[in-house]
């Protein structure tokens, strides 16, 4: 009765999905210090985008992914300009409520456009699977894992090797100095926010064939996303990825080995988060975060 190999596979695949959910959140928080309560709605819109494209034109979600990410990025930048830029200097709570309001609007817009029915995109690879002896690997989730890896790698490349990426990191570390070297802070904020929305959209595209799409899918993802980025160390992308896998392992292990574990899994996630906050308030990767 040993579940270990299957547990590891399940946890890794789940970790991939969690990674997707949180890198965007970590990026936008790291740069702009705005906690985006509408990030879950970006995921939801991405999922509906993939669904609609598949329904109307039959284009596969994975093919639509780049286009949707570009649209998401532009949408995110516009949203930032219009709504978030004016409250950058306001207290955190104001920003939280503003983004929450935006999320509520998007959520209900989705109810009006797509109705509240559950949807999902059916693709052949979503139902493919591989069996290695006792261990089973779900194809759709494997693809999700792959996309997560690619996007994380791309994000890191962007941050390390490109002019704007470096500027983003600079802004994250020393805002004043970033201004002094001539970085247009507001434009960088908008760009980082746009990219985080694009990453959220990508998450939605993956979830569109792995799970179910509904207008209300976002908030649940968001709460878990917060748990993960705080677990990893706010604003640190490496930390967020580590946090995602840590949580995936904890939840999967609880699911396998605790009676009624699938029910308790999430409570364990929040308990772990609570403990980490109390014992090591800066998360696993202790980046200094002012306030």
């Amino acid at each position, binding site marked *: 009765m040993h579940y270990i190999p299957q547990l590891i596979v399940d946890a890794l695949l789940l970790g991939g999905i969690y990674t997707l959910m949180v890198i965007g959140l970590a990026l936008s928080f790291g740069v702009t210090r705005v*906690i985006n309560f509408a990030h879950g709605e970006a995921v939801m819109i991405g999922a509906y985008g993939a669904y609609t494209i598949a329904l109307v034109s039959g284009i596969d979600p994975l093919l639509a992914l780049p286009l949707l990410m570009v649209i998401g990025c532009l949408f995110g930048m516009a949203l930032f300009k219009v709504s978030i830029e004016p409250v950058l200097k*306001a207290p955190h709570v104001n920003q939280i*409520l*503003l983004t929450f*309001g935006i999320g*509520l609007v998007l959520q209900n817009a989705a*109810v009006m456009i797509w109705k509240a029915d559950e949807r999902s995109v059916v693709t052949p690879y979503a139902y493919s699977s591989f069996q290695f002896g006792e261990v089973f690997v779900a194809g759709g989730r494997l693809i999700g894992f792959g996309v997560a890896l690619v996007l994380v790698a791309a994000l890191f490349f962007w941050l390390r090797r490109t002019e704007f990426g470096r500027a983003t990191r600079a802004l994250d570390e020393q805002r004043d100095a970033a201004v002094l070297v001539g970085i247009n802070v507001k434009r960088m904020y908008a760009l980082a926010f746009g990219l985080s929305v694009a990453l959220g959209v990508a998450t939605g595209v993956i979830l569109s064939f792995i799970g179910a799409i509904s207008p209300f899918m976002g908030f649940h993802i968001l709460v878990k996303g917060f748990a993960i980025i705080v677990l990893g160390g706010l604003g640190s992308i490496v930390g967020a990825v580590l946090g995602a896998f840590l949580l995936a392992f904890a939840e999967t292990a609880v699911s396998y080995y605790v009676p*009624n574990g699938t029910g308790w899994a999430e409570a364990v996630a929040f308990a772990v988060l609570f403990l980490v*906050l109390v014992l090591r308030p800066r998360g696993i990767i202790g980046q200094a975060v002012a*306030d």
Partner: protein
Amino acid sequence: MARQSNLMVALGVLSALGLVASTFWDAPQINNWLFRVSTLIMLATSWNLMANAGLVSLGHSAFWGVGSYAAILSANAWSGSVLGTLVVALLAGALMGLIVAAVTGGLKGIFFAISTLALSEGLRISALMLPDVTSGAVGLFLRQDLRPSQHTLYLVAALAAVASVGVAILISCSKLQFASRAMRDNEAAAQMLGIAPRRQRMIIVAISSAMASAAGAINAWYGGYLDPEVAFTLHNTILAQIAPILGGIHTLAGPVIGSFAIIALSEGTRIWFGNMEGVSQMTFGLVLVVCILFLPRGIEGVMHRRKKRQATAGAASPALATGRGGKS
């Protein structure tokens, strides 16, 4: 100045009396709204107390939920009365506040906020997974024979709301207020001034938590039904902060004004736009966004600004500096 503040006290007392008196007026729908306003005033005032000390809570649904369950479970078990179970809820809330403050230690800002969010979600899941205690998702009804008249509950809510604002006023006149301000602005400096942040923090969180619990308890009596979703819904966490921010954060009147505004807004959108799927909540979201963009200091801030403009030029700015939004 003195004459003016006397006038304000008089107005405050009058509005409080008005709220209490309204419960004797037989207008069911307005009673219902004022009931919701009253419990929201308690919740918002409680949130604001913590915010005054620099503690942004995302877990007020946890306090509310603990109070709700404490009230209904104790009422059903021992045939408790409203007031008796209110005491139970206050104690449960205070105890929980003490634990939260003790465990979260020196956490500040976003870290404190997220830890309270984790607490609230954790409690919700525990309530779902422990049906032997809470009846789980199937839900829990208040015993029918215990149910007081609606008017009793309206009255209790109005009195409790007035009492909550009273507590907030007492705190604002006490040493605790200094401590809060100092902690919000700079904890290290507070320490140097001889304020023990840890102890003050425990007191404030305990008071605030007890207040939110009491609101949850009264609401549970009114609703007569509880399940983990009802008790621990994040909706309350959000309402708890929308009201003070819409009204005016870090002020005494802000949460009160905000509570009226929020109930008017949410019921208004529900009634006027409720016939089409999704429209009511979308309108609510839009108005929220617009308010935060254009009223960063809340309604209180707008009134205050207008007052200031009316005041003769060159006069010293009034000592009501609490209306200032913190910078971050």
